[in-house]
């Protein structure tokens, strides 16, 4: 099957600094792909290359058609929460504006927006200002804006950042349903356990693609340690995978309790760290 978007030998950087090197990535119809990797690994840059917001320094990006419908849910931190718009007005932004030249929405457009909000269980919040919603509700509003455009590819940048565990679970639940209905999904996430539980194809990235495949193959200690440059514990139980980073792996063993033994592993270092100002002076 021909990929919807195909990246071949893509390099990208800001000035002299290389952010992404030699990226080969195919996004096939109906795929659900999760990009994982440490902060600064180039995940958002890769999404923006896919979205045609950035241009590669080298390599090529091909789309199956020029009019491919792609929608985007940006990181929640990029949103101006004081902007005077309601949840419904945000969703209406997602409609094709060439279909209606008037400033006000048609009745059919409002009904479509309300139906999506209803599907995401936030129809009753349509008239609320976006600032007055919880993190999970805000995320659903932006997901609704993406869905109202009926995309072929849905791209999400860290959709569960800043939301509680239940809301994060709900978001992945909806994304799984959308994917089962045939929608192609590409997202980035820092939540490795959520990705292990819900995303069928994982790409592990740290400036270059370290590995890609089903979560059972990708969430291994060696691959994660290679990508994140830290120590990981991966526990497998039945079909479930649990990933936990060891606190020692960031050189914090001096100040954090041992997760197994309890208490501080090094008495001297605890005394030193008791007063951070004097510790700094000593150093």
């Amino acid at each position, binding site marked *: 099957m021909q990929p919807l978007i195909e990246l071949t030998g893509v390099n990208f950087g800001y000035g002299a600094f290389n952010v992404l090197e030699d990226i080969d990535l195919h996004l096939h119809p109906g795929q659900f792909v999760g990009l994982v990797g440490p902060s600064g690994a180039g995940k958002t840059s890769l999404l923006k290359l896919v979205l045609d*917001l950035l241009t590669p320094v080298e390599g090529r990006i091909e789309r199956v058609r020029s009019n491919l419908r792609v929608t985007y849910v940006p990181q929640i931190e990029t949103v101006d929460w004081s*902007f*005077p718009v309601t949840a419904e*007005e945000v969703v209406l*932004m997602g409609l094709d504006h060439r279909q209606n030249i008037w400033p006000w929405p048609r009745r059919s457009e409002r009904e479509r927006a309300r139906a999506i909000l209803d599907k995401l269980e936030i129809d009753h919040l349509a008239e609320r200002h976006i600032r007055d919603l919880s993190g999970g509700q805000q995320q659903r509003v932006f997901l609704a804006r993406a869905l109202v455009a009926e995309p072929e590819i849905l791209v999400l940048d860290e959709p569960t950042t800043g939301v509680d565990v239940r809301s994060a679970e709900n978001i992945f639940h909806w994304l799984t349903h959308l994917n089962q209905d045939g929608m192609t999904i590409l997202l980035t996430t820092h939540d490795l356990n959520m990705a292990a539980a819900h995303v069928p194809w994982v790409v592990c990235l740290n400036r270059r693609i370290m590995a890609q495949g089903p979560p059972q193959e990708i969430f291994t200690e060696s691959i994660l340690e290679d990508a994140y440059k830290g120590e990981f514990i991966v526990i497998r139980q039945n079909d479930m995978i649990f990933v936990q980073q060891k606190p020692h792996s960031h050189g914090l063993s001096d100040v954090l309790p041992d997760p197994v033994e309890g208490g501080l592993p090094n008495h001297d270092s605890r005394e030193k760290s008791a007063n951070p100002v004097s510790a700094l002076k000593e150093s």
Partner: protein
Amino acid sequence: MDVLLAPFQYEFFRNGVIAAVLVGGLCALIGVYIVLRGMSFIGHGLSHAVFGGAVVAFILQFNFYVGAVSWGFVAALLINQTVRKTTISADAAIGVVTTASFALGVALISRYRRFSQSFDAALFGNVLGVTPTDIAVIVFVTLAATFMIFFFYKQLLFTTFNSEVAQVYGIPTFWIETWFALILAAVIIASVQIMGVTMIGAALVVPPITIRLLTDSFHRLIIYSTALGALTGLIGMYLSFYVDVSSGASIVLLQSALFCVTLFYVSRVRNRNRLVETPVYGPT
């Protein structure tokens, strides 16, 4: 009633009122987008940049409007592109581009002192100098700005909210921002005679931030801000006539006074609501 009608016997007042109402409403309408994009300083800066262009046009004996509009448009584009393509923030880009342009105007004025008197009017606004040509220009710019905002309302809203995401959703953000820069430059040139270079920035910003204190709805912000701008333009002209101060200063002072009253009112209402909503915990 005589107090209200008496000034209309003078032609300069009739012209001035038409110009002030249109300019007040127009600045407030465009100002909504400027405030929401976090570029409040652009009106102040561009008006100064336009002043440089006007001086150059005068020396080269170009038509004032052609020289000033081209200069303002190029300055607005330079600011937009600097912000889009570099890590320089909007306020820094505005500061560099527009102050350099204003400095050029000042340098040329100090070199050719013979026309400094007429540029005093451009700096501080002079209702006596509003000609039928000025009114025709203001009407044309008002129609063009209203047309653009009416028919590109949704595209402009999305671009103002988040330009990068709007681009993904198929909005031609580059063209929308370019058109907006052109309209903004035109609004500032059309407003110079009535408001003065030094007052336009406030006329763009004060009505939208006043209404913003009262509403969370975008379309209400657009409508009420425009109405407030036009109303303060009208009342400001009367103040200018009876108190004998420059038209730009009287309009901006009136707008600023209304902003202070609104801020005071909103703070009091919020404090009262906070007191009502704060639960009182006591022994159970």
